[in-house]
């Protein structure tokens, strides 16, 4: 999300950069450009106005204290960045666990915001951290919302408390109440209450949400909001805040291309932190919300931190250590390694999502969207049809071996040929890379990455704020890309 905002901000700021020395009128013009970008991104007018006011003030104040043009542009860039982080929530907050379990989390939001799916993601997220969550079906309104939660619960392996069939039958307040008693008796340490979607203007249903709240006294009420929401975010967020109230915000459908400016408005106007982001249809497509990352994404600096973290998660420590060792030792990059990398990549989740996090990705939007995920699957199936010897030494691949592999993988011989060619090129690049230089374009392309993707920030390179590198990836290609970026 925020793609277009980042494109526009990049535009506004790069015209500043190219000018060198700045004047106050440059700052005025940039402020106007940034404001237009914010409005285009669904930021509420009042929030956009106050944002611009702050940027202008701080920019003007900083102007005389700076020496050269580049530094001045960078200063403004950093001011915009800092203000964005400020509005997005300053620092992320985690769920507060109660001292007397269960910790009760209640979800609230408009119809269609994605609460039920989110309930499942949240349950999985905390289950994986060793908690014992219980899901509670208190949406008795929407047809088959209860069934949906049951299916979701089953697929993440979390029990669902659903004594009522829903579809208009049953009292959601009583269900929530009974769930709490049940959770206490069975020693669940976390209760996640899914509720029906409701409009901010629907007094009756808002009262019902208040009744649910009063019945279970939640430790956290999370307001779930679709990242695609427009200006109504302000009215709706206020209505929920004044109605049932909430302690944190969850943004959903962040895998879309909505600019998500509403997130800025909600955080600014309600003062509540955005805590989680939901970014895909898989139940693992979920993460803590990082304001800094989002801000750098807005500014087109790419989300390298998230990428590194996902890479780390995906490559289990053992295999990544092995890979690193190998790389350090100067061993050759084999098809075996290639396969391992592909597997890690598919473990890391959707490729296009991943690519979207890379610096400069905004400029490559079209290519990224057209990226063919199934390419990886196809490549994988070919490598998997090879014997260990063949993977170790592709030179043995004669015609009959290639035919056998094609048959096994259900592909054409040409596909096998082209993979072997790509791999040889990649291997050659890897050898060169060892001598320094980063992820060469051909390597990136051989893995289906559009040309230039490995090349780091495109326009913001010089003035980019330093990106914290927590750890270096064990994946040589990734690591090289990180080191370079």
């Amino acid at each position, binding site marked *: 999300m925020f793609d277009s905002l980042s494109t526009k901000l990049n535009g506004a700021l790069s015209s500043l950069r190219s000018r060198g020395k700045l004047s106050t009128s440059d700052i005025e013009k940039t402020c106007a450009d940034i404001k*237009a970008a914010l409005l285009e991104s669904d930021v509420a007018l009042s929030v956009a106005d106050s944002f611009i006011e702050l940027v202008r003030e701080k920019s003007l104040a900083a102007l005389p204290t700076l020496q050269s043009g580049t530094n001045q542009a960078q200063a403004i860039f950093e001011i915009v960045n800092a203000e964005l982080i400020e509005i997005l929530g300053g620092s992320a907050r985690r769920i507060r666990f109660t001292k007397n379990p269960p910790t009760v989390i209640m979800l609230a939001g408009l119809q269609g915001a994605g609460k*039920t799916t989110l309930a499942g993601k949240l349950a999985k997220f905390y289950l994986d951290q060793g908690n014992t969550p219980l899901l509670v079906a208190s949406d008795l309104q929407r*047809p088959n919302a209860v069934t949906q939660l049951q299916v979701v619960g089953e697929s993440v392996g979390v029990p669902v408390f659903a004594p009522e069939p829903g579809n208009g039958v049953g009292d959601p307040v009583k269900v929530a109440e009974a769930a709490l008693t049940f959770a206490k008796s069975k020693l669940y340490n976390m209760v996640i209450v899914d509720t029906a979607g409701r409009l901010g203007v629907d007094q009756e249903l808002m009262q019902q949400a208040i009744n649910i709240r009063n019945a279970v006294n939640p430790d956290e009420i999370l307001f779930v909001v679709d990242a695609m929401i427009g200006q109504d975010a302000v009215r709706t967020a206020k209505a929920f805040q004044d109605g049932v109230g909430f302690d944190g915000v969850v943004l959903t459908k962040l895998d*879309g*291309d909505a600019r998500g400016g509403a997130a800025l408005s909600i955080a600014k106007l309600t003062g509540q932190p955005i805590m989680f982001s939901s970014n895909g249809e898989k139940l693992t497509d979920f993460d803590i919300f990082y304001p800094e990352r989002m801000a750098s994404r807005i500014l087109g600096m790419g989300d390298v931190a998230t990428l590194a973290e996902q890479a780390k998660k995906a490559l289990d420590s053992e295999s990544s250590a092995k890979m690193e060792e190998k790389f350090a030792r100067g061993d050759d990059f084999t098809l075996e390694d290639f396969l391992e990398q592909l597997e890690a990549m598919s473990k890391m989740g959707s490729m296009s999502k991943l690519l979207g996090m890379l610096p400069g990705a905004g400029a490559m939007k079209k290519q990224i969207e057209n990226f063919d*995920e199934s390419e990886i699957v196809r490549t994988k199936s070919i490598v998997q049809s090879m014997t260990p010897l063949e993977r170790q030494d592709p030179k043995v691949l004669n015609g009959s071996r290639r035919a056998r592999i094609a048959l096994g993988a259900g592909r054409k011989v040409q596909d096998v040929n082209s993979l072997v060619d790509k791999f040889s090129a990649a291997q050659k690049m890897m050898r060169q890379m060892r001598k320094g230089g980063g992820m060469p374009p051909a390597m990136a392309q051989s893995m289906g990455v559009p040309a230039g993707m490995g090349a780091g920030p495109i326009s913001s390179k010089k003035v980019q704020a330093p990106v914290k590198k927590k750890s270096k990836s064990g994946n040589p290609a990734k690591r090289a890309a990180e080191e370079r970026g």
Partner: protein
Amino acid sequence: MGIFSKFVAKLKGESTADPLDWKVLEEELLAADLGPKLTAEILKSAQGLKGADALSSLTQILNSHLSIKPRALSDANSIGVILVVGVNGTGKTTSVAKLANLLHSSGNSVMLAAADTFRAAAVDQLQTWGQRIGVPVISGKDEAEPAAVAFDAAVAANESQVNYLIIDTAGRLHNKSDLMAELGKIRRVVEKTLPVCEVLLVIDATTGQNGIAQAKIFTEAVDVTGLILTKLDGSARGGVALAIESALDIPIKFVGTGEGENDFAPFDPESYLTGLVRD
């Protein structure tokens, strides 16, 4: 006094005590999700207005941004096949049921197809609706291909010669090219048996400027013929639909105003346009 009437009074020169700032109109149009571009266009034409026929002039300005394409369902010579598409959670399934109810209660035979085989319990959801409004629902086995379900439904609709077949599809974000391709496939497969006469894109009234990208890309994939604008019963005014009409010439055909099967009506331009600038 609502902003609309304040504005009209201002243009007529009647309102001196309560002068209207252009800024206020701009704020209102932006707050309605018309977007900065359309807002600027409308302001520009409005500022050129003068005289006693201000109300009709203003209505004309807004009207001029509406599509002139017909808003009724296109006349199908045989069976009207309607494909309902959109991003996740906009109200597709509910709208399928509401539209079926509208057609059914005006004397048509209707069949539904549950081609959302992806989201948990989506098929059950449509079946529940089918029972409620008394129309048959064609569904596939678990994990069936959506295109296969749509194909079977087209064959069944053809055999039983119903007046309308309405196909519910899974919510999908328009930036996922594989899922958009799947939608194209559903359409092609249906058209082996019956032509698709309407592709209705469901837009949630709370949607911001992203709605334009949605409309654009869904149209590229399956040639959208109309919009269903849902959730107009909330505080959102659904101005992005006007931006879509203006930019892409796709008419709003129906509006959804609640969760019940009767909370649905053919689009009425006048109430929509005045609703955009209500206070």
